[in-house]
């Protein structure tokens, strides 16, 4: 396929482009039974492209200034998550745990929550604690709200009313068996607004954004665009200055808290916002719906601004709500992206691409690859999505493509499809490395999680400038794989 490398048969294996160093377990390759390929026929789940719900709630909480998620569950529920954060962001993530042991499973987590909250308040002086429940606390039926009332009462008694007033609490119910990390974020967005947002009746100029699983670089790009639009904005769950901070050495006081994050007051004032945009319909859409219903704040969930059309939609919507003209500088950036697309159309046109990832990323990226003239073939939406499939269908219909969309499936089904119908390029996360190596197709990393390459959390993929970066990533990956090194531009 690539430079006409011939198939190398290893011990009788007729497996397309099998890598040589790959050691086969059996003497010959046995294909899986065909009836077990589609995920819906199987009880067993292999390589899910989604993780558990508390993760999303923890992600959201880490975007709040001096906030600590308190995970009401066993220790593993935080260890794995902290490991994920440390791999993706290379930053410390402060996450507390209720340390469920056997006694908690039998007698309930009341003692753990009360003691845990007390310890946190004494030692870390946080401004906000989010109680994130897990499978175990949900199954044993912990009455979190009454535990929390008791904890707050004890705190007031011990440390005085000013400490009690200084710390806010948000409860997010996230049993892993009821959804995925995307739903966890969604619930956190709703619960934070529900618990904190107030309305004074005096509308402000601020436009609010719920970014979803955008990386720090994306959020910075969003801020940049809003600055160009001259719009007054607030970003909820702003991880850009909590999970991507400068190295400055030993701080003046410990415990270390990152400087950034959304302030609690910004949540409080969300009820008076001029408008709210959830930039990931599946991760944060619930927050938008709730705010609109409760405070009549015009709220909208729109597709993540990846690519030309999606970014156009965001800019137009913001201009409309904020009543601002679209600035020349934004048009300039758009022009640069269009120029980059025109420059590289020979590499991107008619390339077949397979996509994998979280619903919001996949839905938006499909729009972008269609704009690049690529043909989406197999699309895996990692977790069951209400909106992503319709969004993808709509954009593919517009461009006349008919991809196979796997909603709420696992990577096994998607990878098998790819093995039998090899695409030219894969857009996916770090867990797609195996399949990309196996079928020798370039992998363009984007979305969550990317942990095997550095700097991806700082490089934006949203907006016009981000689109230009993502385009460069795609084209460079194709060039690396499909063209000999120096003869391309002669």
């Amino acid at each position, binding site marked *: 396929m690539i430079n006409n490398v011939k198939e190398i048969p290893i011990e009788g294996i007729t497996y397309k482009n099998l890598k040589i160093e790959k050691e086969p377990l059996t003497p010959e390759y046995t294909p899986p039974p065909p009836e077990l390929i589609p995920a819906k026929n199987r009880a067993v789940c292999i390589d899910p492209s989604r993780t*558990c719900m508390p993760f999303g709630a923890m992600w959201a909480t880490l975007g709040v200034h001096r906030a600590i998620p308190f995970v009401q569950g066993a220790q593993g529920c935080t260890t794995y998550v902290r490991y994920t954060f440390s791999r993706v962001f*290379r930053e410390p993530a402060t996450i507390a745990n209720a340390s469920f*042991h056997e006694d908690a*499973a039998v007698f309930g987590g009341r003692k753990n929550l009360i003691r845990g909250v007390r310890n946190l308040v004494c030692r870390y002086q946080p401004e906000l604690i989010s109680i994130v429940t*897990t499978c175990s606390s949900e199954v044993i039926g912990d009455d979190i709200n009454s535990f929390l009332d008791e904890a707050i009462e004890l705190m007031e008694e011990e440390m005085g009313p000013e400490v009690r007033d200084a710390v806010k609490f948000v409860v997010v119910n996230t*049993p892993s068996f009821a959804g995925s990390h995307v739903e966890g974020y969604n619930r956190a967005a709703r619960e934070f607004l529900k618990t904190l947002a107030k309305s004074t009746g005096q509308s402000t100029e601020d436009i609010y954004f719920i970014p979803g699983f955008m990386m720090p670089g994306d959020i910075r790009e969003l801020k940049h665009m809003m600055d160009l639009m001259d719009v007054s904005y607030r970003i909820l769950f702003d991880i850009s200055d909590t999970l991507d901070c400068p190295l400055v*050495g*030993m701080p003046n006081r410990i*415990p270390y808290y990152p400087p950034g994050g959304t302030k609690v007051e910004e949540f409080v004032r969300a009820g008076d916002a001029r408008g709210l945009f959830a930039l990931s319909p599946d991760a944060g859409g619930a927050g938008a719906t709730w705010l609109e219903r409760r405070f009549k704040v015009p709220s909208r969930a729109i597709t993540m601004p990846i690519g030309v059309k999606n970014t156009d939609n965001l800019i137009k919507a913001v201009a409309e709500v904020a009543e601002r003209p679209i600035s020349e500088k934004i048009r300039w950036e758009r022009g640069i992206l269009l120029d980059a697309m025109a420059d590289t159309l020979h590499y991107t046109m008619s390339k077949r691409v397979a996509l994998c990832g979280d619903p919001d990323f996949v839905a938006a990226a499909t729009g972008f690859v269609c704009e690049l003239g690529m043909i989406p073939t197999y699309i895996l939406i990692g977790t069951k999505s209400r909106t992503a499939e319709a969004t993808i269908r709509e954009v593919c219909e517009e461009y006349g493509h008919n991809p196979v969309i796997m909603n709420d499936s696992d990577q096994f089904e998607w990878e098998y499809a790819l093995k039998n119908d090899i695409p030219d390029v894969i857009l996916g996360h770090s867990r797609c490395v195996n399949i990309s190596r196996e079928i020798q197709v370039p992998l363009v990393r984007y979305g969550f999680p990317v942990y095997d390459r550095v700097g991806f959390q700082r490089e934006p993929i949203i907006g016009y400038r981000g689109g230009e970066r993502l385009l460069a990533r795609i084209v460079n990956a194709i060039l690396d794989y499909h063209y000999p090194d120096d003869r391309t531009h002669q």
Partner: protein
Amino acid sequence: MEAFLFSHPEIWPQRSCGLATEPGSMSQRSCVYFGARYVLGPVREAIHLVHGAVGCGYYGKMVRGTPAPLFSTDMREHEVIFGARQKLYKALVEAFALNPEARGAFVYITCVTGLIGEDALTVAEEVAQKIGKPVKVISCPGFSGSSQAKGHSVSYKALLELIKPLPKAKEPVVNLIGEYNVGGETKVLKDLLGQIGVKVHLSLTGEASWSRIETMSRARLNLLFCGTTAEDFCRAMKKAFGTPYMKVSFYGLKSIAASLRKIGAFFELPETLVEEVISHGEQQVLAKIFPWRRHFWGKKALIVLGAHRLGPQGKMLKELGCEVVAAASIFGKDNNHKEATEVTSIVTDNPGDHELEEALWVFKPDIVLTNAREQWRPVKLGVPVLSFPQPKDRGPYAGYVGMINFARDLYKCLNAPVWKLLNSSLL
């Protein structure tokens, strides 16, 4: 009073570590399921089925570097309410159909299934009868112990049940117990033992497969590397199959030499051969690390590592000339801490983030050895970190090759120009 207690160790409070974790302490400990996955993760020729919610299946794959494929039942809400017996049965049968070469299966019980009281044992029996292959249920709900150490012990017990009695091999064959192939250590150890003429049957679980585990009783000696639970396993193996075991360590020059001599003496190998391997290896290491040694002298190190690594890594640092200011284990037992007292006088158990930050504040170490999950906290406070387990590209730290790798990585950490730039002010 303290002096009195030190001189009378029998009245010294013995259970000072391994206690339950204080909620909200930001402990680095993990759950029992994590421990079970850590030990069993890379066992080949086996089906690994996680019976629980999707998160456990997702994260279970990232515990060890090269895990075998992982299946999960991906339990949903209604299955938590009504039980997932049927689903587990179906999932197991399907997993066997997808992996016909598997010789058996491990079913991991997680928090959810532990709490709803899923009767996985009878399902396992039914499937074992239908398929004709053994199915082991690993009872490791996350909450069922105070740290991952419990998971290690549960999985070693399960492994013990797989072993079949076999006659002992003629040639010197050993098993490596509690060796986890961190950064490719198994290959280094195999090479080193091969040099003195000792063959390795398997490494639990650095390089293990179901069939190798079944036949591991043919080895003449078990080499015990890491962990209290692994020692229990060795003891049980000695009782059941008469395989003697020997505690060894391949971290640091002194330990390597002592271990090689011990193994040589056991198999009555020619002494000259063993000594030659030792002197050759040591020469190689010394020649390589000689130019770096002035960078290590008197540097203060802080160690926060799992359990067994405290002592060995501390000794390696000492051999290179560093000073260990304090050591803390995450889930260690008494014997781990005792070993650590040989390298430092301040030893503690289960530090949280706050304690770690305070230690950095108080001790002002030049380098921190800690696990990969917590490596960025000291870095953010301006202290270089040598993380463990190290990524594959940094290579193993065991054996003579490992000593060179360790010194090289230490040199890199300490001497990166970034730390100087951090302390120099902007114009």
